[in-house]
């Protein structure tokens, strides 16, 4: 029972996270493209759109990092660890997983400090507190920690999530598992 709940939370987290990433990237594109259109057709562009889309890119980066981890897309050099005996290698990967968790916990802690500091400054175009875009550092870091914990056993086994697009060998179409 507890196990299926754990899995449900895990699956829900991934689904919501993926949705956020897709919508944010889409919003970035729409804003930049709209700015191109308005600049060349109407002769003006919206500075706020440029700023929002830049902030969104940073949000996509930090909110997407956990998903990238799950799909094995954070490049690493595994040649040395692959030469270790299986047991030792698992131990090493556990250690590395913990290093990631500690790093992002620290980052979220200092990220909160950055948000507090940024609350008294304003962004150039939107004139909102800089602390608002800075929020992604603590939020993204904690999200990464959550993904690391849910994914920990699979990380140790390098059992990546199969969200990578797979190209059909004949038609060239992308399919998903």
């Amino acid at each position, binding site marked *: 029972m507890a196990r299926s709940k754990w899995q449900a939370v895990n699956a829900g987290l991934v689904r919501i996270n*993926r949705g956020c*990433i*897709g*919508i*944010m*990237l*889409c919003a*970035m*594109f729409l804003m*930049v*493209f709209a*700015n*191109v259109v308005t600049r*060349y057709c109407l002769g003006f562009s919206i500075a706020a759109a*440029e700023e929002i*889309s*830049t*902030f969104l*890119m*940073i949000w*996509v*980066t*930090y909110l*997407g*990092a956990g*998903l*990238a981890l799950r*799909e094995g*897309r*954070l*490049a*690493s*050099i595994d*040649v*040395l*660890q692959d030469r270790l005996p299986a047991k030792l290698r698992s131990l*090493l990967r556990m250690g*590395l997983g913990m*290093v*990631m968790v500690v*790093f992002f916990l*620290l*980052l979220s802690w*200092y*990220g909160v*400090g*950055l948000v507090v*500091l940024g609350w008294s400054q304003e962004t150039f175009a939107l004139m909102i507190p800089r602390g608002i*875009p*800075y929020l*992604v*550092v603590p939020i993204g870091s904690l999200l990464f920690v959550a993904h690391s914990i849910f994914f920990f056993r699979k990380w140790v086994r390098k059992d990546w999530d199969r969200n*990578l*697009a797979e*190209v059909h060998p004949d*038609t*060239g*179409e*992308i399919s*998903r598992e």
Partner: protein
Amino acid sequence: MSAFLFLVFFVTLAAGLPVAISMGAAGMASVLVGGKFPALVVPQHLFNGISSFPLMAVPFFVLAADLMTASGITGSLMRFANNLVGHIKGGLGHVNVLVSMLFAGVSGSALADAAGPGAIEMTMMHKAGYDKAYAGALSATTATIGPIIPPSILMVVYAISDARVTVAGLFLAGVVPGLLLGFALSATNHWMSVKKGYIFRSRRPSLSELGKSFVSAAPALGLPAVIMGGILGGIFTPTEAAAVAVAYSIVLGCLVLRTLNIKRLMDVFVQSGVTSAAVLLIVSMASIFSWLLTLLQVPQRIAWEISNLTTSPAVVMLLVAIVVFLCGMVIDTLPALIILVPVLGPLVDKFNIDPLYFAMTVVLNLTLGLVTPPVAPVLFVISTVGNIKFEDLVKAAIPFIVAEILVLGLVILFPPLSTTLPRLLGFAR
């Protein structure tokens, strides 16, 4: 402090921590242990390091390439290439090279090429009777053309880390070296095919067949024209051009080819978002790392040491080439680029080297790192996708890698190869 920075970085890197996190962890550990700066500088640099509008070209180029692949346009590119060069000896091999060159005009990354068209070409070649390792090796090495022929994500990041060059200038500088790479790989394929007896070729198509396949490939071929024309004509910035490329791909996939619907579109957005996150995380984490390097005067010290060693720019270029090649062998391309650019940058001023030429040699050199073991991401992708033993793949790739190293040598020896085009069009400073 610099010793500590390098110690943490190299130990965690060698242990197999993701490169991005290695850089971030080394940076944070040095700041905390050094005690000279408040820990807040870490999140601040991570954030500001990617708070850049020009950098947004990266996710958009990723998105445009993913959309193009998902809309199935790669298939028509391949038919066109097959009609064009498939009837020559070693035919499918030449098709492989040509498709990579055409696809390079759409995508900005080698991994996108290897996982997309590269994998398909490998299967096609294997079916036609080529040795699997040979087909895989060719697909892997042709994929390295991607970051050299514009647009190129590597070049966008280079231009952001080094104010001496512009994205447009670098894009133009890559054209001739990119073509050279294509010729070199094609020539090697021809030679190997003759030697190994791969004489399977396709029937020479009629002119109308060729014309038809050109028409169906034209939309994909039009994209690089839009991107480059827009940037060079001063109509768009690279970021805007990338956004226009995305719009172009969406219109093409949803309205013209009708292979994309809203659901597929959303899938591609998510997939590209995750890819971009992985790339930009490296840029972000590298910013704290390279800030510390600069602060510790590491680049200046290296430039000074080298100037003690020699005063000849040619020797400097040779030294740089060796250092960059070794880095490319063990570190992934993008992090290597971000670490090396600020470190090697001062050499350009000190020895009065053309910055575009310098940048081109570094980018080309690091791109070769994608297929040089032990750390060869493109070979890994091909070996996984094609189910080929890594060692066999490496062995089969050696002649092609040698051909690419020869091209690198030419580009280093003859600066005009990279500087003429940007200079003619007025994009060199």
